[in-house]
């Protein structure tokens, strides 16, 4: 823990005023990637169901 | 080969709308721009040339849109395939026809209007030659884009090939600056001639492959 670049958690969020940019970039990008995983996974389930139903 | 070229030339010359239309639009756009701004406020010399370059880009896209459409729809493409098994000569003739009948006058119009940008009369031939080479590149590129989306509409071709047109634009802009500043022209010219010859000989091969895909 001695290597932490920030002295407190609120410091970590604030990042000398740059926190807004850093955090919005990471959070939105992570959101996009997670959304991609979830969407494709859901689509796979949907198409598997459709194939099963068609097969009968 | 000469015969194919001649027949394509006469075919295009007859279709006034296809070649005269884009030229008139180009003139209109180049006149409209200064009319739309306050000339006393802006020094036209400094950026009028960008308008000319963008006009070249758009009009070359416009003129090659649907370049193969008619032949695709009326069966002439199949005819060519039956006879030649390959579209190289046909595409080469067609694209060169377009470049000569539309691209050359476009370069002429552009170089005349470039005088408005402060280019001196002595330099006009250089500008003309540069624009001609850019048109050679652009027409080949957009003919390729048009062959991809033969009957699916124009927007597809733009989206697919516009990114590839940007280096040509950058090169042309750079060339103009070398003329305005007086040095470096030979380098840009060499690059343009080299890439022009390369692209003009290779693109028909690629377009040929694309057309064969459409006929399968």
């Amino acid at each position, binding site marked *: 823990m001695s290597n932490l*670049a920030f002295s407190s958690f609120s410091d970590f969020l604030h990042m000398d005023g740059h926190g807004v*940019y850093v955090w919005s970039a990471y959070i939105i*990008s992570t959101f996009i990637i997670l959304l991609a995983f979830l969407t494709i996974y859901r689509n796979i389930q949907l198409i598997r169901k459709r194939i099963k139903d068609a097969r009968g | 080969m000469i015969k194919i070229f001649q027949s394509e030339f006469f075919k295009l010359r007859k279709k006034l709308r296809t070649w005269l239309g884009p030229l008139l639009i180009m003139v209109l756009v180049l006149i409209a721009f200064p009319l739309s701004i306050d000339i006393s406020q802006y020094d036209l010399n400094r950026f009028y040339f960008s308008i000319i370059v963008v006009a070249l880009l758009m009009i070359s896209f416009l003129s090659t849109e649907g370049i193969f459409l008619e032949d695709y729809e009326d069966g002439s493409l199949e005819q060519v395939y039956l006879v030649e098994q390959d579209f190289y000569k046909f595409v080469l003739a067609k694209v060169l026809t377009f470049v000569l009948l539309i691209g050359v006058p476009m370069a002429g119009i552009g170089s005349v209007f470039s005088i408005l940008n402060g280019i001196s009369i002595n330099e006009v031939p250089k500008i003309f030659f540069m624009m001609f080479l850019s048109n050679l590149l652009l027409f080949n590129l957009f003919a390729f884009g048009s062959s991809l989306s033969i009957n699916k509409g124009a927007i597809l071709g733009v989206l697919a090939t516009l990114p590839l047109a940007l280096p040509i634009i950058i090169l042309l802009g750079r060339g103009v600056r070398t003329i305005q500043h007086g040095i470096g022209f030979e380098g840009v010219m060499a690059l343009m001639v080299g890439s022009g010859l390369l692209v003009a000989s290779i693109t028909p091969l690629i377009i040929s492959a694309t057309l064969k895909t459409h006929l399968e």
Partner: protein
Amino acid sequence: MFSSFVHRFSSPKSYVEITRKFFPYISLFGFLLLLIGWIWGLAFAPEDAVQGNSYRIIYLHVPASIFAQLVYFFMSICALIHLVWRVKLAAYLIKSAALVGAMITFIALFSGSIWGIPTWGTWWQWDARITSTLILFIMYLGIITLHGSFSNLEKADRLMSILVVVGVVNIPIIKKSVDWWSTLHQSASITISDGTSIDPSMLYPLLISIFGMGLTLISLGILSSKFYILTREKNKKWVQSYV
């Protein structure tokens, strides 16, 4: 002889079965590495002398930019395989990879843009790197749109492959010409401190983030290709028994 080798290993069925086995490991390992890299970079790496704390976006932006281009190169290899050996799986992979590529290119643009605000004071700057990334993004969109507009899918596959190959030849041309063009403008590019060397305390989290991002994107690509293969091959017998 070589082509029969290629054909044996290119059946969509074996591809789906093999990737299914590896997917959990690749995705978990990828997420883990990415998380470690990011936490290290965000909380433990030292502040930059020139840019302060905003440089930390590098652990997101650089991996994204790298893979924005690598995904395209992957697609171009698939395109060559498809055009030369007529391997259908290769075409399926191009289509699935294009979506992943477009996404990560967007993230690269987006993160680069946000980074620009504290660094240059503006969210857009016509410098060489961000402009060529924008062009790359448009190329991805063009490929996806082209393929989507043909009802004859075999034809769409071949046209898409041709476009991808023509595009890959252009990427170095575009990069060089945009670079050339932007040297006329005195724009500051994204550099860390002196720009030529990066301190190890910042380099290691960056490398970890790059690997983590790579594995994450590969797993996303596996998922995407599985979906697309099921869609395209849904009438085949192996799919019927697979589901």
